[in-house]
Structure formats: C-alpha cells, structure tokens
C-alpha cells in the first residue's frame, strides 16, 4: 500500500469505518512509514478532541428569561392588552359626549327658565296691548347661541380628535 492510499483511508480508519482488510493494510504500511504514522496519530487526536468537546451550558436564568418573554408574547396576543391606547381614545370620546350632553341639558333648563316666564310675561303685555318683549327674547337667544356654540365646539373637537388618531 502506498502513502496516498493510506492517506485516503486514515479518516475512515479512526472512526472504525474501514474494513478489517483495509485496517490491516494501513497498519502494516505504517510500521515502516513515519509520515503515515504521524498522520494516523493526528487523525486519532482530532477524533478524540472532537469526541470530548466540553459541554456548553445555557447561562443561569436562561429558562426564566425565556418564559418571561413567552408570557409577554401570550399577553400581547390578547386584544385588551394590545389595544390600551384605543381604549383611552374611547374613554375620551365618552367624556366629550357627556360634557356636550350636560351643556345641552343646561341650555334647555336655561331656555325653559327664561323663555317660558318671558313668554308668559309677553302674553300678559300683549293682553295689555303693549310691545315690550324684544329685550328678554334677545338675551335668551344670546344664551342659547353661546350654549350651542360651546356644544358644537366640543363636538367639533371630538370629531377632529377621533379622526386624527
């Protein structure tokens, strides 16, 4: 057997993948060949080194870190947790609606308390044949317009806020 033939068998020899006949031929060549003896020795050392590599361990706390993220991932998959900003938007718009409703109720009460007595007063004056209803009516109109403007303003702000997000 020649050097080249031995060389082609060495890497199989050291992992026990050669036939008994091949193993014997390599061994008999190596007895008289220092070069191939060194090659075989190197292949065996390599085999030993690969087979005895140190076991690498995950860092301490690795599993806990992973599970922490797994639970975060699971929670993030639920709409309630994921849509917190949307929930805030909803509560803001609810608040605006309540304020607007309060304004309208206030305006109505104001109108009722001013217009109804004024109407009664106007009918009384009319019954007396005098024209004295304009001043009170203007005041009520002014209050109503202010209330309406305020409500529109709030509703308009809500509309802008809702579209903007």
């Amino acid at each position, binding site marked *: 057997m020649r050097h080249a033939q031995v060389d082609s068998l060495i890497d199989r020899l050291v992992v026990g993948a050669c036939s008994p006949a091949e193993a014997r031929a390599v061994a008999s060549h190596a007895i008289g060949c220092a070069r191939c003896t060194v090659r075989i020795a*190197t292949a065996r050392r390599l085999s030993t080194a690969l087979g005895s590599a140190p076991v690498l361990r*995950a860092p301490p706390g*690795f599993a806990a870190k992973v599970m922490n993220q797994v639970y975060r991932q699971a929670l993030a998959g639920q709409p309630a947790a994921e849509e917190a900003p949307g929930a805030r938007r909803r509560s803001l718009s609810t608040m605006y609606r309540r304020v607007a409703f309060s304004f309208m109720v206030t305006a109505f009460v104001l109108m009722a308390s001013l217009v109804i007595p004024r109407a009664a007063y106007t009918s009384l004056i009319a019954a007396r044949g005098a024209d004295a209803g304009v001043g009170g009516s203007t005041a009520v109109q002014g209050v109503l317009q202010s209330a309406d403007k305020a409500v529109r303003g709030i509703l308009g702000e809500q509309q802008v806020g809702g579209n903007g997000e």
Partner: protein
Amino acid sequence: MPRSAKTETVDDDELIARVRAGETRFFAQLVTRYADPVFAMSLRLIGDRAEAEDVAQEVFLRVHRALPAFKGEAKFSTWLYRITWNMCADWRRKNRRPGRTSSSLETEADQSDGRVNLEKKVIDGEEQAFVQQALDGLDDIYRSVVILHYYQKLSYEQIASILEVPVKTVETRLYRARRQLRLRLEKIGQGGRR
C-alpha cells in the same frame, strides 16, 4: 442529550399537547430540557456568547409561536434544532464580517513564533481551542456537520433532516470535514517542528 431528559417523566409530546391546550407553564419544561443544547448550538455556530443567548431565546419564542402548527412529522427535538440552525444561519448571513470565517490557524502558528507543539496541546487540553480554530476555518457546509455530529451528538438522520439534505450527503460532508481538519492540524504540527 439534553441535561434533564433522563429524569423527566413527561415526554415531549405530552408537554407539547398541554402547551397547545393553553397550559403555557408546561412550555417551561421544554425550555429547561433543551436550553443547553440550543444555547450550545447557537454559541458554536455564532461564536459570541451574548449574541448566542439572544438567538437561543428567540428560538424558543419562535418555537412557542409555531407550536400550534407543529405536525409531529419529525421529532420535536429535530424540529427545534432545525429552527435553531436556520436562525443561526440567518444571523451569520446578516453579521458576516470580512475575514471572520477564514482560518485563524496559520495566524495562531505565526503568533506563537513557530513553537506550536501539537503533542503539548493534546496534553494540556488547549487542543479544544486549537481544533475550534481549525473548525472556524472550514466552509459552513463542513463546519455545520461537524458541530451537529460531534458537539451536538446528533445522528446522521437528524442532521440530514435539519439541513434538508440526504443522509449520504451528511456522511460525505463529515468525511471531507474530518480530512480538512486533519490536514490543517498536520500543517500546524509541521510548522511546530521547524
């Protein structure tokens, strides 16, 4: 083999079934069982401890997300290692730096002023690092099979499944990888005798 596999009474399939049924806490047992091999594979393929830890964590997160789709056609461990290998391969593609994968074996010989002594390295245990450097110089296709077979202790069949190549290809690559490693080590040995 995973560290605690022998002492666990609940097998992977049962744990997977429980996790899929919504009992997330059972995923912790899978993580504990496979933390070491997944981290080890990541570290050996990536070469940086902090990066390997990040990738290994992401592997488990991805596995958890993909668990509902896991059909059980391959063993869980093989599927897990395939995901690990793919994510490490992605990392290497994104983070490859010039010269990173070139052999540093010659550099080592130069730095030690030609006094590299292979026999001594065997005796004092430094040969592991020495072999690792030789390994870093191999092409990825050879390096991968060495890591998966010798360091991760995976069978040819598992490696074939992870790399999605025939078993015969794994055998051939492993043979060529061993040969290339030996030649590199021989070269160093000769350098030491000069």
